[in-house]
């Protein structure tokens, strides 16, 4: 199926999201669609998937213009899309989710959809180790994505759109995904990979198309381009600032002492965590997803009650079992999945930005003042669009992340807990986020930084602690030399030896 987009334009209010974009998508090839947050690549693909109607322009399949009034129509034409926000239903099992989306599911599906013939064929091909009877809510994110892929492939898809598929994956999971994408393309299916990671392009793309500010600014074969050239196309003439953390004084007293902490969270338990973070230090937490990172972050931010131990700031207890949290603005928390964990989705941006100082707001809130403060913050943290009255749920993932950073990092915290802070951010915005974290550290803040991106951790953190099955498998100084040791700790190869 040879698909072309011809002269597509789409306007949302004041912004021109797509400006006369024409794009060819040949079968059997992987096209990487690159662009920064808000460059218009998601809009373009949503048009292709029938979720948005373009103002002008056509979608043409094999020379024939087609109408795409709904995702259903797109699916019927063989266009499938895997969203960044997964569309599997967590409370149902893998089988039930697959059966739900499969148009050939018979009326009798049997208990747990175990009687649907052929349901698991695609899943077996791409992910033989996924338990089909497990509830999706219990699967790690890499497996959820594989199920999502199987679900779309079950629909006889001939064009597959993947929206930033590697954003939520660890390195190992991303490599698995890349080889999957290659296999899928080898079967003659066209693949569009929306991404802003150059690693994705290097690993599996045949062609690259770059969008900037709603326009298609370049298209090339992946083999003919190199990283600097792509980067120039991506960000235009802007240069990407390089950031680095300052060296830390090692003899300093710990600013934060996570002392012998155990806690149970919904996504895992942690046991006997003992970490000291000096003022100005960035402590990275590495580990394969699901080894207790979320619980550690929640415990250090006072979201999850401790079962044992305490968290202290400058010797003063912040959190301990059966103790009313005493953080009072001294912990800044950038949780993962900000839409779920860090904002009120249907509150305005201004209200969301003032949530942190809720206790100190006057009884009668001065809305104008609130909107003004919000506008200032959004300008400083580059939250787009900068409309204080807009509801938080209407922001894109990257801008939500920036919104939460604007709220959390604008005070004077002693501890910053950052979970995957650059997830969903493009190159420029990631650099800005890191620069902010290091600026906090420079002011004497302790930073606990949870990430699955080992490269970034090794480059930017002072020390790295590795979580394995809820315990600290090891702590070492960051640096290229530590990579193999950390890798061994992450996989449990020398766990607790």
């Amino acid at each position, binding site marked *: 199926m040879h698909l072309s987009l011809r002269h597509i334009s789409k306007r949302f209010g004041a912004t021109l999201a797509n400006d006369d974009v024409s794009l060819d998508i040949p079968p059997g090839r992987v096209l990487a669609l690159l662009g920064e947050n808000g460059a218009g690549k998601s809009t373009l693909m949503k048009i292709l998937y029938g979720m948005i109607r373009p103002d002008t322009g056509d979608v043409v399949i094999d020379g024939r213009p087609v109408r795409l009034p709904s995702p259903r129509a797109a699916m019927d034409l063989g266009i499938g899309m895997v969203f960044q926000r997964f569309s599997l239903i967590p409370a*149902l099992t893998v089988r039930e989710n697959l059966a739900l989306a499969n148009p050939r599911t018979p*009326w*009798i*599906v049997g208990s747990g*959809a175990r009687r649907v013939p052929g349901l698991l064929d695609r899943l077996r091909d791409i992910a033989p180790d996924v338990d089909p009877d497990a509830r999706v809510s219990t699967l790690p994110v890499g497996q959820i994505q594989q199920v999502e892929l199987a679900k779309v492939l079950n629909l006889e898809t001939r064009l597959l759109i993947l929206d930033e598929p590697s954003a939520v994956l660890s390195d190992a999971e991303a490599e698995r995904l890349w080889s999957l994408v290659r296999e899928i393309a080898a079967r003659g299916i066209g693949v569009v990979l929306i991404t802003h990671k150059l690693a994705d392009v290097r690993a599996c793309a045949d062609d690259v198309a770059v969008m900037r500010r709603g326009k298609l600014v370049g298209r090339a074969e992946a083999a003919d381009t190199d990283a600097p050239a792509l980067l120039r196309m991506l960000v235009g003439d802007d240069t990407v600032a390089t950031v680095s953390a300052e060296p830390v004084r090692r003899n300093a007293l710990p600013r934060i002492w996570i002392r012998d902490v155990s806690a149970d969270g919904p996504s895992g338990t942690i046991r006997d965590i003992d970490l000291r973070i000096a003022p100005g230090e960035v402590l990275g937490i590495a580990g394969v997803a699901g080894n207790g990172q979320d619980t550690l972050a929640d415990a250090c931010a006072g979201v999850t009650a401790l079962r044992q131990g305490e968290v202290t700031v400058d010797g003063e207890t912040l959190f301990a079992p059966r103790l009313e949290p005493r953080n009072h603005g001294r912990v800044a928390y950038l949780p993962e999945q900000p839409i779920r964990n860090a904002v009120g989705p249907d509150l305005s941006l201004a209200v969301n930005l003032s949530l942190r100082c809720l206790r100190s707001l006057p009884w009668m809130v001065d809305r104008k003042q609130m909107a003004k403060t919000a506008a200032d913050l959004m300008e400083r943290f580059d939250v787009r669009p900068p409309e204080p009255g807009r509801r938080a749920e209407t922001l894109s993932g990257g801008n939500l992340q920036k919104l939460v950073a604007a709220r959390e990092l604008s005070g004077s915290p002693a501890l910053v807990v950052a979970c995957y802070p650059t997830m969903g951010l493009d190159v420029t915005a990631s650099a800005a986020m890191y620069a902010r974290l290091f600026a906090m550290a420079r002011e004497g803040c302790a930073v606990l930084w949870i990430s699955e991106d080992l490269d970034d951790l090794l480059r930017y953190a002072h020390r790295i602690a590795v979580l394995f099955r809820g315990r600290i498998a090891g702590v070492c100084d960051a640096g290229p030399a530590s990579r193999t040791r950390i890798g061994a700790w992450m996989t449990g190869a020398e766990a607790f030896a």
Partner: protein
Amino acid sequence: MTAFDIVTSGFLISALRSATPLTFALVGETLTQRTGVINLGLEGQLLVGAMCAYAMTAAWGNPWLGLVAGAIAGMALSAVHAALVVGTRANQFASGLAVWMLGFGLSAYYGSSLVGRKIESFESIVPKSVADLPVLGSVIAGLTPTVVLAVLIVPVSALWLWRTRTGLRWRAVGESPEDARAAGANPSLIRIQAILLGGLLSGLGGAALSVDYTRTWAEGMSAGRGLVAVGLVIVARWNPWWTFPAALLFGGAEALSLRLQTADANVSAHLLHCLPYVASLAILTLTYVRGRVSSAPAGLRAVMDR
């Protein structure tokens, strides 16, 4: 009185008969709530169903016609809820209360001429000779078609919800309408179907109440059964299989309160009438104390939290 006596002396059958109208309503509400909609109008649907069924039976002398009329009436009233909730996206609680009051008023108005009228109702489904069988004879002899229907509707609805594509879609809509839509289901249509099916079953429950259980019509005769059903859905954990024990619990408490009254227990009849409700309340509290109600459809949480 030993446990054996309780069973054989007809306590079990009176519990079963009392639980029958509730079972219909409970199964219906369970299915409705599975799609993420709460229908507090159940009470009104029971009343309208009871009234229409009674009127039909009185006019034509055929209780089966009564059941059909009751079911249709309950469904018609629930269409109001469907139109408000799905059509205009009205608040589900407000809409449910409106439907309840509407059903109460309509049934009281049109039912006023039915007060005191006699009807021909169902016979036992088994021949008289069976009643002489030892142990379970009296139970079997007391079975009427509505009781059997109520017992059957439980496995049917459970199999339908857990083992068919339609049931899967309903559950998906209850968990996440957006994702269900992405998977090709039509959440609005499914919710309308679910509300109407809930209305049909509660109308049938009302019919069983007036035509078979009490065999009389009185204003407001459902006496809170609809609201009890809404609460028992939580006790049954949104699982059709558990609706029957939950309904039996209520029925058993009601049978017990009647038994205590006839046994000249020195307790106010008004207090005894509270027994089934106290029992339902107690079991509901226990359900929450025992742990998080984790099997609730995620879509319902959105309704509850607003």
